[in-house]
Every structure is written in C-alpha cells, then in structure tokens.
C-alpha cells in the first residue's frame, strides 16, 4: 500500500525575479505529523498555498492524496488553515462554520463537534470580530476539522494561542495523528515541532535543506570533554583518533566522533595521565540543528 500522502517534485514558485520556493522535494507519509520548519519568509506558506491549489507552481509538480492540488476531489479530504483564520467578521463563530459546512456538504452535527473539539462551543454565538486572536485561531482549527479530513494542512496553528491553548493544540494534533489522520504543519516554534512532529522538513531561502525525523536531526554531533592538562589531552586524542579536535571556551574540547566512542576515549586519556572531569555525547537540540541548517544556507546564498 502506498502510504505517501503528499509528494512534491522540484516544486518552484517565482514572483517576477524572486524565487520564493526553489525546487522543493518533500514527502509526507500517512498518519504522521510532519513539521515544516523555516524562518519567516523562507517559503513555508507559499509551499502550503501551492499544495492547496491557492497558488500555481511556476514549475515542478505536487500530488496530494494521489490527486492534483486544488482539485475538489482532493480538497474534500483536506482540512486547512493557511495564513491565519479568514472568516466573515459579522457572523458568529457557529454561523461561519455553518457557511463552510454548506460548502463542504456536511451537517450541523459536524459543526458542533468541531466547536467542541477546539473548546469554543461556549462562545460560538459571539461574532467573529469580537473574538480574541486565540479564539480566532481555534475557530480556524475548527474549520479545518470539518468533514473529518484525511490530511490537515496547518500554517502556524499555534499563532496567537496562550500557553494552555498551545498545549491543547499540540495534544489535539497528536490525537488526530493517532487516529489515522495526517498532519502537515508549518511553524517557526521549534519547541512545538520537537514535541509533536514525527518528521520535519527544514526550508530556508526557498530551498528544502533537510528532511528527516526529529531524532535524526537532533543526532549527536560529537563528544565533548573537560580534561587537564588540556595540551596533554589534545596530544593523546590526536594519537588515538584521526577525528578533528576543537578547543572551545572554558577549557572544553570537542571531538567529531560518534557518541559510542566516549568510553574508549576516557580510558585512553586516563591511561595517558590526563584527569578527565567530564565527558559525554553532545546532544544537539532541534533549535541548534535548525540554526545550523538555515544559517548555512544563508551564508551560502
């Protein structure tokens, strides 16, 4: 069974002489929460707009749920919240959802269910324009959930939410994925992505610079140790390994070696008469990886 829900091939969008999205190849699999990471202006929203058929690619292709982006057959199976919630300000939250439900061809029960899911039923009779930013975002989430879509495409879904709301949204997205729905979300909130996403794609300056699991992106990037005397430690390390040894502030040394070499290094250093005060793998946070990847691209461009 083909479990690919979204796949793009060299997807590109140019506005005049500016390339907003540059030959992006990404793949989203069934049942996963896929985080689309990137700094502001990196091309996240433009990519999502192309996946939804709101913008046409300049070149390249995309397939969603086996169909063409923007086709009614595909959109009926997709729920989306892109560039913030867009609703009629004079209508209540409930009536706004009723309008969308009529477009989607679903009944009033689904409207109430969606309001319950985002915990907005108690304010559903209020006009949209009277909502706080957080409530507007919740209503946007409710609109995306109408019709129990197979794929949710959410652009910065936690924007405007308070911490409790953000936690609710994270739990909701995980629950949806556990229920078999696939979630593609863009964010620049790395903490959110680290907590809820199975895989991530990192985009910078329009280019997809990495696509992997969160764990792989956070993979250990070497061994760090504090030892004295430092010069003896460096000479010993140079003798037992060909890996590069970097001096860091505060007497730290960093060696570009897999983490499973820690014990062997410690033994060699002690055997050479070096006092090893601390040694261990370097745990790179997603944030570190993100800055490393996006920073590299910015320098290169």
């Amino acid at each position, binding site marked *: 069974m083909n479990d690919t829900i979204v796949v793009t091939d060299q997807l590109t969008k140019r506005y005049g002489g500016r390339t907003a999205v540059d030959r992006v190849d990404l793949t989203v699999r069934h049942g996963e929460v896929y985080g689309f990471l990137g700094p502001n202006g990196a091309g996240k929203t433009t990519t999502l*707009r192309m996946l939804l*058929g709101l913008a046409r690619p300049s070149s390249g292709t995309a397939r969603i749920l086996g169909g063409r982006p923007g086709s*009614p057959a595909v959109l009926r199976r997709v*729920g989306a919240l*892109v*560039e913030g919630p*867009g609703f*009629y300000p004079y209508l209540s939250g409930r009536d706004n959802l009723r309008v969308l439900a*009529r*477009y989607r061809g679903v009944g009033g029960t689904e409207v109430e269910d969606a309001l319950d899911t985002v915990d907005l039923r108690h304010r559903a009779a209020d006009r949209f324009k009277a909502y706080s930013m957080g409530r507007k975002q919740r209503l946007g989430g409710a609109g995306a959930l109408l019709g129990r879509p197979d794929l949710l495409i959410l652009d910065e879904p936690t924007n405007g939410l308070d911490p409790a709301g953000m936690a609710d949204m994270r739990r909701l997205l995980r629950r949806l994925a556990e229920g078999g729905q696939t979630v593609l979300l863009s964010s620049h909130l790395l903490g959110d992505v680290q907590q809820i996403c199975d895989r991530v794609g990192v985009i910078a300056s329009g280019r997809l610079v990495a696509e992997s699991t969160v764990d792989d992106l956070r993979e250990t990037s070497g061994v760090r140790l504090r030892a004295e005397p430092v010069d003896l430690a460096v000479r010993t390390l140079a003798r037992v390994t060909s890996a590069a040894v970097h001096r860091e502030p505060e007497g730290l040394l960093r060696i570009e070696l897999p983490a499973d070499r820690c014990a062997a290094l410690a033994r060699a250093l002690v055997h050479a008469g070096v006092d090893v005060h601390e040694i261990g793998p370097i745990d790179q946070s997603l944030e570190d990886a993100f800055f490393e990847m996006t920073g590299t691209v910015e320098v290169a461009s």
Partner: protein
Amino acid sequence: MTASVRAELLRLLRWPTTMVLGGVWLLMNLSFAYVFPYLSYRSAVADGDTRLAAVLLEDVSMAQLPPTLVQGMPMFGGAIVLILAALATGSGYGWTTWKTVYTQGPSRLRAVGGTLVALAMIIAGLVLVTLALDVAAGAAIMALESQAVVWPGATDLARGVGAGLLITAMFGAFGAVLGVLARSPALAVGLGLVWALVAENLLRGVAGLLGPLETVTDLLPGTAAGSLAGALGAVGESAGGGDPGANGGTPGVLSVLDGGTASALLAAYAAVFVVALLLIVRHRDI
C-alpha cells in the same frame, strides 16, 4: 453549485450591508417615486394649479407602475446594486474568506458561481420588493385621493420587472467583477461609482462636442440602462447631457437607444462581466 448558493445565501442574507443597502434603495425609491411627487401634488392642489396637479397624480398612479419601477435604477438603484456586488466579492479578499472557502472543496468556479447566483437572487428579490412597495404606495395614494385604481397591462408590468432585473443584473455583474479585479472592496466601490455616476456622464457631455465619440457613448452600460428605462416611458434628461433633472426628468434615464437594443446591450455587458470574472478567478493566485 446548490451547496455554494446555500452557503452564500446564508452569509449574504445575514450581512448587515445587504440589509442597509437594500433599505437605502427602497427608501430612495419610495421617496423620489411617490412621497415627493405626492407632496408636490398636494402643494399644486393647494395652489390651485389643477393642470400640474393632474400631471403629478398621473405620475404616481398605478398605470405608471412599469416606468416608475425602473426610473431610478439606471443611476441610483444601479449604483447601490453595484456597491453591494463589489463589496460581496471584494470583501472576501480583505477578510481572506475566499481562501478559506476555496480550501473547503468547491472548485473556484462553483464557489464564485454560488456568490453570483446568490447575489442574483437577492437582487431579484429587491426588484420584486420594490414592485410590491410601489404597488402599495400607488394604491395608498389612489385611496387617499379617492381615485380608481387602473392597473397597467400584464405585459407592460412584465416588461417593467424584466427591465428592472436586466438593469440591476448588469450593474451587479459590473460590481462583482470590479471587486475581483481590485481585490479590495473600497477600491472596487470607488471605481464603480466614479464610472457609473461621473465618468459616463462626462463622456456623454464631451460626445456632444466630439461627434465620433457619440458612437461609443451610445453603447456604454449606463446609456443602455438609461435607454431601457426611457423606452418603458420613464422621463429623463435630454440625450447628450445637460443638467440632470433640469427638465423634471429622472437622472440617468435616457432616450438614446430603443428598448430592444438597450436590452441586448445590457445582457451582453452582464455576460461579458460574468465571463471576465470567472476567467480571473480561475487563473489568478489567491
């Protein structure tokens, strides 16, 4: 398409703008078609000017219902419908609701088609409510003056309603395409009003001096709308411009084209505006 129409009717009928603009049109129509002429009639009676009084009473009689129904539509009614349609399509860009709608599953053409059909239904309803109001006002005046009610012929009445629908449909389609072109309600309304209330009148004025331009101004949307109202018997300003209303006629009502040509032109303009709107919506990024 039915789903889109139902969705659009829900949001348009609950939109205060729809009610406000509809109310403004009905109030203007009642005031200028019945209340002011009737007050003038009472004044003429008080002054003993029986000839003027007879003319004014005839103007508000039921027999004059078809021209009375459409006389305000080439200018004020058309402008109000244009504003409604421009706001209905243009606001969706400011509120970003088009984007939300397009991601719910309907094709773009079905979604915007739903808006057009819903707008057409509302505009048709407005024409029929105007007719009902005019009937009530005319009947009330005839009763007040103890005059017998003489109904217009069914064909004349049907022509009047048809002309009203055609004129408002053209202005509605014009407003809708402006809203989509401008992607902004304010700009669309501004451009539409400048064209409908100012630019066409200025062009017709210039055409009086520049003969060849008259061929063009005779085919303008406002000329067609005004001519159709004029063909039904509404009294308007003289063709070629002049001070609107100086001759006692209704601004916007013209006698440039015959009824058939004016109807065909209005239908053609409405069709062109709708096709242009659909093409733009289909091909442009949101």
